[in-house]
């Protein structure tokens, strides 16, 4: 009988599930996020409450068994939010913990390889966000950016932006997942914002943004145009590097 295990959709929650699997010697389980749980006709559903201590113990053990690179990949794969990623992570963790040697990077194992591929996609999205975030200066002197990344990567880019923009207040807001990061010149915090119903994240309205903001956007657009070499035009390559789904927030791509 396959048992369904649900958790609170956090990474600590998932690590707690792993802990529980060992504790209760569970076999044949399907892990689901609690809010996405499907109706189960037969069998019971076990909800595992997130427990920081248990999660930390699993994480610590993994770090002993394998390299940082491998544990980072497990976390990054989790952020992909891919359907069923929890079970793949469980398989990879079980394989790593069961092996005497360090097999965290053994790409011959199907779960490890899958994790590595997911982590690669997430890493690519992280890098894209570091590139494609476009701050706009608000009247309050905060640099504000909206993004809709394919994966939940804000936690991965937080330090990059904190180190880089240490002397300006900034917000990076994930429009899809409805939360953001706010740097107040000292620390980065997770925030939730309420927007007016007429707020359009792709526009730069003069109610909210500083007058000088539109001027710099114009200069940037001009620069983007001037730096292009017409006789080398290669639209396919251009779109491959800057896929269309990102255009809506890119200042240089606004009409």
């Amino acid at each position, binding site marked *: 009988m396959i048992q369904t295990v649900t958790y609170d959709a956090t990474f600590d929650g998932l690590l707690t599930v792993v802990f529980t699997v060992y504790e209760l010697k569970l076999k044949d389980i399907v892990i689901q996020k609690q809010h996405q749980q499907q109706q189960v006709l037969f069998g019971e559903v076990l909800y595992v409450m997130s427990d920081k201590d248990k999660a930390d113990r699993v994480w610590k053990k993994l770090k002993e068994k394998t390299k940082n690179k491998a544990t980072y990949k497990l976390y990054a794969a989790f952020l992909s939010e891919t359907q069923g990623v929890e079970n793949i992570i469980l398989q990879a963790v079980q394989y790593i913990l069961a092996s005497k040697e360090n097999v965290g990077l*053994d790409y011959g194992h199907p779960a490890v*390889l899958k994790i590595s591929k997911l982590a690669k996609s997430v890493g690519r999205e992280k890098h894209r966000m570091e590139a494609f975030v*476009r701050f706009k200066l608000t009247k309050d002197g905060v640099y504000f950016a909206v993004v809709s990344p394919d994966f939940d990567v804000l936690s991965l880019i937080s330090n990059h932006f904190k180190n880089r923009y240490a002397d300006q207040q900034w917000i990076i807001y994930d429009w899809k997942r409805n939360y953001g990061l706010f740097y107040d010149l000292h620390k980065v915090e997770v925030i939730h914002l309420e927007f007016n119903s007429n707020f359009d994240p792709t526009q730069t309205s003069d109610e909210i943004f500083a007058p000088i903001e539109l001027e710099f956007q114009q200069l940037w657009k001009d*620069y*983007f145009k001037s730096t292009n070499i017409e006789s080398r035009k290669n639209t*396919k390559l251009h779109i491959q590097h800057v896929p269309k789904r990102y255009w809506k927030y890119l*200042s240089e791509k606004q009409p």
Partner: protein
Amino acid sequence: MSFDRIQEKLKILADAAKYDVSCSSSGSNRKNKNKGLGDASKSGICHTYTQDGRCVSLLKILLTNHCIFDCAYCVTRSSNDIKRAAFKVQEVVDLTLNFYRRNYIEGLFLSSGIFKNADYTMERLVAVAKKLRLEENFNGYIHLKSIPGASDELMREAGLYADRLSVNIEIPTKQGLKLLAPDKNQADFLKPMQKVKNEIIQYQSERKIIKSTPKYAPAGQSTQMIVGATGENDLQIMKTSNFLYKKYGMKRVYYSGYIPISHDHRLPQIGTPVPVMRENRLYQTDWLYRFYGFDIDEIVNEQHQFLDLDIDPKLSWALRNLHEFPVDVNKADKRMLARIPGVGMTSVAKILQARKHRNLNWEHLKKLGIALNRAQYFMTCASSKFERKDLTAHQIKGLIQQQSTSKYRSNFNNQLSLFGA
């Protein structure tokens, strides 16, 4: 600042700077200090891409496009009838900071036409970098052009504020340079390269003793050559490139397919296509030299003065050296793995990692993402199935080309196309 005036200048001076292909922002490890602005990313970031698919990483502009020289290949040559403009130091500083704060760019790439003389020009370039670093506490990436003929003192100062310095050799051969830029002399380009190299070595050795020694051009120096302007062959280009890597410790040599910009009879006429395919093959060769452990004369030599356009240089080398193959992927060393066509350095790393745990067969290799359509003819693995027939180089090439779909394929295909492309 006056918006209209800046807008006009930016259009002119960005347009004039775009022929410099370098837009690299990698290789510097400058850290944010005292809660200032900026932090150079070691791997570099392309913030956007132009419609020709090139990375936009830096604000790439000329300080001015006034120039006393008249080099035929250059769009800002003194005899060219174009609009001229010049930025003030403060204007460049403001643009850089405001673009950087919005996460548009990794930093500044500042070049210039030569106005009055070399020192006068270099002084102004240095003034911009100095102001950004010392007054604005800017820690983003700065790439400055070295102006040939500038004083040693200025060159030394430039390296203290810039992450990278470069001077473009532009024409790969002495004869070509003589033809197109008679007022210039190859030695003028090489002197600043030597100077920068010496300073880098000196500062590095001092840093070993005194930790607080400032960094000198931490991302090193680079240069650029125009390809296809003067009829040089690939052997000449790669020889010059190799000389620059070895003698001056270049981080990068860029190859820029000549873009026709003038009706000068010494040059390809306007409308001639840019040799993008050739440029691509030169870059591949450059990579084989820098990352794959090839010597340049294995790829191009007196017998092969031009790179094949229809296949990549590694495959071309492999087909000429079939006696080195097949390679056993479960046993071969890193050097030989890297020589298999279709296996890149990332794949080499994956193979080395994965074969620690088990012997690899075709299925494993496919899952690792190895380009087997090329690689299969050059390797064996833990499987009894492999290419047993003694295929000739010509046959292998044919088989590979049949299976590949290259966007350039139409350039080499003589078959009639029924329905058009």
